[in-house]
């Protein structure tokens, strides 16, 4: 098999295709697209549009997990950013200022997390748990406990507008994924982040600014969470501090894991994390259009996730290695070398 072809046949793409196929079987109109009022509509668009917030979270989360960290606070940061945007736009501030302030709130949250991890040496799961718990309280303080609604067309555009016929969140997601991938892969940042994740001590000895890099990735995760928070608030035209982004940090982590980045740090792929987020959303959308009773939602989701993760596991990779004919590969002694988790393609 030629290299580009092989790198395309990743279990993630197979999983996505299978879930979309399943959706189509359950709901024959799944792939229907139609154009109205200058915008594309259809279930596929819904998957992309609704998957965007988690995908954007996953972009930031990927960098954090690659450093062998984790960020549990992104859901709460979404709430903070949404609260800032909604209250400021309600106070009549210009849109540009509103967006900047919301993004700044996310950056500050990320900086806080990064400082706890890099400077105080707290374990990431504990460090970010602090803001996960406190963040929603901060957001509620900003909104004074109300769902702050707004009607500013500019801000609403971030959630339900469209550009070139596609909903704004999709455009933002694709742009951010492309920019982030470029920023990591066209510079040496990606290599540095992977190096820290693989061995922080050795990376420091090799002259990397481990602390600054760690603070950087958490700040980036906070920035992504703020974008997500703005989209989520814009989508419902209100900042719902209690509910926005609730448990989405777990979806984002799951998306990264499905995308093949190991929680043990090291190799990462932002595009594959986005694919992971879309897999999760394809499941959610499928459940919605299928008409199953809601009692089955979590069961169906859990079962599908188990299947996806098992298919991607190192063991399955090794079995695949033995079954698949004429694959010239080094001995499958390590999970890193199995096709399931190899991300070499994205490095090139």
């Amino acid at each position, binding site marked *: 098999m030629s290299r580009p072809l092989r790198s395309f046949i990743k279990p993630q793409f197979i999983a996505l295709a299978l879930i979309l196929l399943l959706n189509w079987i359950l709901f024959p109109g799944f792939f229907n697209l139609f154009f109205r009022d200058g915008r594309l509509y259809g279930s596929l668009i819904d998957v992309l549009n609704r998957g965007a917030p988690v995908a954007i979270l996953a972009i930031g989360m990927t960098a954090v997990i690659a450093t062998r960290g984790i960020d549990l606070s992104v859901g709460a940061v979404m709430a903070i950013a949404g609260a800032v945007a909604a209250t400021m736009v309600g106070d009549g501030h210009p849109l540009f200022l509103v967006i900047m302030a919301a993004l700044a709130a996310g950056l500050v949250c990320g900086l806080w997390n990064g400082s706890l991890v890099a400077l105080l040496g707290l374990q990431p799961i504990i460090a970010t748990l602090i803001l996960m718990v406190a963040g929603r309280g901060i957001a509620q303080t900003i909104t004074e406990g109300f769902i702050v609604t707004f009607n500013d067309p500019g801000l609403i555009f971030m959630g339900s507008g469209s550009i070139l016929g596609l909903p704004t969140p999709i455009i933002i997601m694709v742009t951010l994924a492309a920019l982030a991938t470029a920023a990591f892969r066209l510079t040496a940042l990606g290599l540095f982040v992977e*190096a820290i994740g693989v061995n922080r*001590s*050795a990376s420091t*000895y090799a002259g990397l*600014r481990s602390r600054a890099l760690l603070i950087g990735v958490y700040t980036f995760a906070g920035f992504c969470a703020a974008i997500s928070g703005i989209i989520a608030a814009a989508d419902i035209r209100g900042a719902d501090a209690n509910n926005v982004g609730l448990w989405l940090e777990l979806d984002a982590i799951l998306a990264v894991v499905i995308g093949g980045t190991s929680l043990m740090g090291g*190799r990462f792929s932002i595009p594959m994390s986005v694919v992971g987020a879309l897999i999760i959303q394809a499941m959610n959308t499928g459940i919605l259009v299928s008409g199953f009773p809601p009692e089955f939602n979590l069961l169906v989701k859990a079962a599908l996730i188990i299947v996806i993760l098992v298919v991607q596991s190192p063991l399955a990779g090794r079995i695949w290695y033995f079954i698949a004919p004429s694959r010239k590969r080094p001995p499958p002694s*390590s999970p890193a070398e199995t096709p399931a988790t190899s991300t070499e393609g994205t490095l090139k």
Partner: protein
Amino acid sequence: MPEPVLSAAHIDKSFLDNKVLDDVGIDLMPGEIHALLGENGAGKSTLIKILTGAYTHDAGTILLDGKPVHPRDTKHAQEMGVGTVYQEVNLLPNMTVAENLYIGRQPLKFGLVDNRKMERDARALLSRYQLNVDVGSQLDTYSVAVQQIVAIARAVDISGKVLILDEPTASLDQHEVEVLFGILQRLKADGLAIVFITHFLDQVYEIADRATVLRNGRRVGSRAMADLPRMDLVTMMLGHAIADTHALRIGGGRQPGGLFASFKDYALAGKAAPFDLDLHEGEIVGVAGLLGSGRTEMARLLFGIDRPDSGELTVKGKPCKLREPRDAIALGFGFAPEDRKVDGILGDLTVRENIAIALQARQGWTRPLSQKAQVDLADRFVRALDIRTTGIEQPVKFLSGGNQQKVVLARWLATNPKLLILDEPTRGIDVGAHAEIIRMINSLCDQGMSLLVISSELDEIVAYSSRVLVLRDRAISGELRGAHISVGAIVKMIAMQPEVQDA
């Protein structure tokens, strides 16, 4: 001549294919303090673990009071009479002194622990050690020294024939060491056989009756301390004949260039006593010293991993500060650390990335090395250093230890360093790779690079150093230059009697 209380002979032990003990033996007499000596990896711990039942031996016999024994585990060995106290006291810090003494064998009354009797017994037991503590208090309210005596009391009370002490003095101050030695003398008078493991030669001469020396998994010999000169002992430990002055010298004839870096009064409390160090261009400075003499601590200071409490650094006449390795690298320093796996290689990354990382780090993230530049770099060093790999895209964790070491070396050479610090560059490396690395070290300095090599292989140090620093007790205790460099001279310096001090 009394019979040995414990006698181990022809002990073999392998882990996988790695033979760590080869035909080793030791005899312990009742009423003697027996030092067990050797450098890192000599096999001391393995032998101890076999005697105390933590490991089983592959071959050989252990006789206790003349009868063959096969300790199943440490508890079994304790019951038979062999007790151990480790450096990190293995007691329960949050339980009382009395509970620690009797845990697992508490006196019972009506099926319940009889606390009063336990504390009474504990007081009686500790009084024999002249230790006056409240046995009802939590253990960790007392100093490490007290905890250690409690551990010894427990071990002796349970076992009573052989007491093994693994580096008992490592974290004690001078006074506490004296108290401990007083206790050991008393136990010795009671007829106990005591094994004493330490890196402090002075203490060996102070307390031990005999010493058994291991090196590379073999017994070099057992000698009475009374007729074992320090020189001989160090020679036994390091494995060199004193007469060996004709070792191959490559570094001796080199003329060092101008002063490159100068460390003045560099010091870090508890790690390194204040030292001065001048490094010249094209110079190879060897650093010798026993384990624990402060070799690695010195390297960490020089590379900015640890920050000194005091001291100044000038590089080419300009004052500089090292806050982190990055600062050192910016000055042209490089450092191949002792523990490759922990501090050196980036296991999951490829050979190419491992080689490029330091250069890339110095260039900064905004100026990435192109894929082609990285491949060229990696190809060049894989060829130059003969790194055995299936390809430069292989994760470096799959390479052998020697090849990993070469990758780390390549990483620094790629930065064109002006000063390279190598900590144990040949440890765990096969003979072929060994020779290559030495050859390379030499050729590097012809290009004006300054080298500081830390090694426990004295041959090696002698072979390429233009100057040798000898460390003792975390301080530079001497320096050898040019023709004066020989294994014998280094050994003599290491073994030197400490200067007499008024206490």
